[in-house]
């Protein structure tokens, strides 16, 4: 996983609550057996019209947001299915940071596994960001995960709190599986003791 330390990037907007993973990446694109190449299908039914042209009514499609790497959106982002294709498509499209008032659990977790930083801000902070981003072309945010600060050149600043363990994993780009396998003794001990006392656990 690519480490995440600092990021300065253009911010784009998705002004909808409860965006589900079926919208982030519709099911017809889940058939690939790779982790890459999903960006072209991100928000497919919203980004494109029925004749497969860019939908001019979809805010994210506007020229001013081109090259965005930060997505600001509304509450409960990523609800629905567990498909990791959702963060894969966001990452492949270019997003490294998603800012919302709240996220669905599985999606939130999946982001950290893929080097994407999901940030929770209050509803009012999000609304002020929406306002600023719409006011200023090519609005950019700087995200410093080490210092846990998000700021803009024109003086907006937000202190953020990221779970310390997840923050370390992102900062160092750590491999979860290697971290767990460092506990091989604990796992073997569990398998030889507690597990044997649970009815039906072993097969």
């Amino acid at each position, binding site marked *: 996983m690519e480490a995440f330390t600092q990021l300065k990037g253009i911010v784009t907007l998705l002004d*909808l*609550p*409860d965006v*589900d993973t*079926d*919208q982030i990446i*519709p*099911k*017809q694109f*889940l*058939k*690939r*057996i*790779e*982790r890459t190449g999903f960006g072209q299908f991100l928000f497919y*039914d919203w980004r494109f019209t*029925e004749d497969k042209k860019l939908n001019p009514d979809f805010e994210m499609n506007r020229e001013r947001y081109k090259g965005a790497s930060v997505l600001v959106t*509304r*509450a*409960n982002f990523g*609800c*629905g*299915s*567990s*498909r*990791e294709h959702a*963060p894969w498509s966001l990452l492949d499209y270019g997003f490294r940071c998603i800012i919302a008032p*709240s996220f*669905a*659990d*599985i999606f939130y*977790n*999946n982001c950290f*596994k*893929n080097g994407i930083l999901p940030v929770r801000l209050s509803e009012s902070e999000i609304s002020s960001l929406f306002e600023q981003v719409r006011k200023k072309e090519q609005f950019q945010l700087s995200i410093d995960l080490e210092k846990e600060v998000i700021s803009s050149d024109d003086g907006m600043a937000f202190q953020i709190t990221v*779970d*310390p*363990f997840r923050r370390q994993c992102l900062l160092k780009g750590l491999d*979860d*599986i290697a*971290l*767990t*396998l460092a*506990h091989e003794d*604990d*796992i073997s001990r*569990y*398998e030889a003791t*507690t*597990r044997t006392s*649970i*009815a*039906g*656990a072993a*097969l």
Partner: protein
Amino acid sequence: MSKSLFEKIWEKHLVHEEAGKPSLIYIDRHLVHEVTSAQAFEGLRLSGRKVRHPELTFATMDHNVPTTDRSQPIQDPISAKQIDTLTSNCTEFDVRLFDLNSPHHGIVHVIGPELGLTLPGLTVVCGDSHTSTHGAFGALAFGIGTSEVEHVLATQCLQQDKPKTFFIEVNGHRASGVEAKDVILGIIGKISTSGGSGHVIEYGGNTIRALSMEERMTICNMSIEAGARAGMIAPDSTTFDYLRGRPYAPSDFDAAVAQWEKLRSDPGATFDQRLEIDVSTLAPQVTWGTNPSQVTSVDARVPKPSDFSDENARKSAERALDYMGLAAETPIEDIPIDYVFIGSCTNSRLSDLRAAAEIVKGKHVASSVTAIVVPGSFEIKQAAEKEGLDRIFTEAGLEWREAGCSMCLAMNPDSLKPGQRCASTSNRNFEGRQGAGGRTHLVSAGMAAAAAVAGHFVDIRQHI
């Protein structure tokens, strides 16, 4: 100290705990399907790792599979490749696979319980959000992403933050025609699609105790639609009777039951949230919007966006009505439908098929409606055919299909065309879920069957 059912299972599965870090918990059963596993197996290969416990890992293909004639090759080459990839991964990593030729083939959340793989007190995971289904047995069961699938394959463990707990007590006698689906839709309507976020929900109360295992699975299945990490119901004699004699149930079954009987929340156990619901006046539910909390009673009308005081909910309702092509204040019973789907891990079990068959028996689906019935597993299909349900369906003009996820998410050829409106027994009414531009109304099996006959929604309480 009093403990909740969740806490008892969590504590028994702790492998390692350390302040400031997620806990390492042990996973007893890992279910695998074709859509979320290929990249995980590839990850193992790239890092030279093995599956730690192939005997605890079980795979099937369900999302992509056609539900029509299985003797024909799969038409979609990308679907076929994904299915073939699962087969070759299972061979390479020595994982047991219930493929399309297996008598145990079916939707992963249907066959786990059927085989007795899902047991009280176990931890069950799968790269699929509806893994919450298995909590009906008093298991801690939840969906995971593909990175976590790889993690479980390699380590048989998961790093997890301890979730909060939520007890929902459901009481009252359900009216005839009000099914488990209506109970859970009613709950989601009340607590919203994020009401359970960060929580494991335990369902209790006299209504829950009176439910069959199949009905309990319907309830726990849709816990994820309330945003919950998992849903669970304490095991009791209903659970034990269901499991006895299943292929993978413990051989010393009575000893297991003695242990399972202790798996209940102690009196005085504390929960982070509680909710009491009375279902004695609950009507059959129909969703009108594009998330499962946008739901109302069949005898009500489509709401007006201005009925919602919360700005987000109002905006959401406006958008949903536009997508769904519905005018506010339309009586639900006046909404015409084009399609009926009876199936999915929510409502494709024998009792669902019986409820639907009872309603369509001797009648015929409306001429404007296409209706398909997709059993959850090969075993259910056979049991239904033994009872003659297949003939009841086909004589009434419904198509009788092979098992799979089918039109719940339309990854296979079963899908809606743009603008088509479907009464569906599945679990998600998201935009495009059943096909781009398709419009989904979630209902129970009985309600879907009645809508097929009438061509619009009807209150089945008037007909039973």
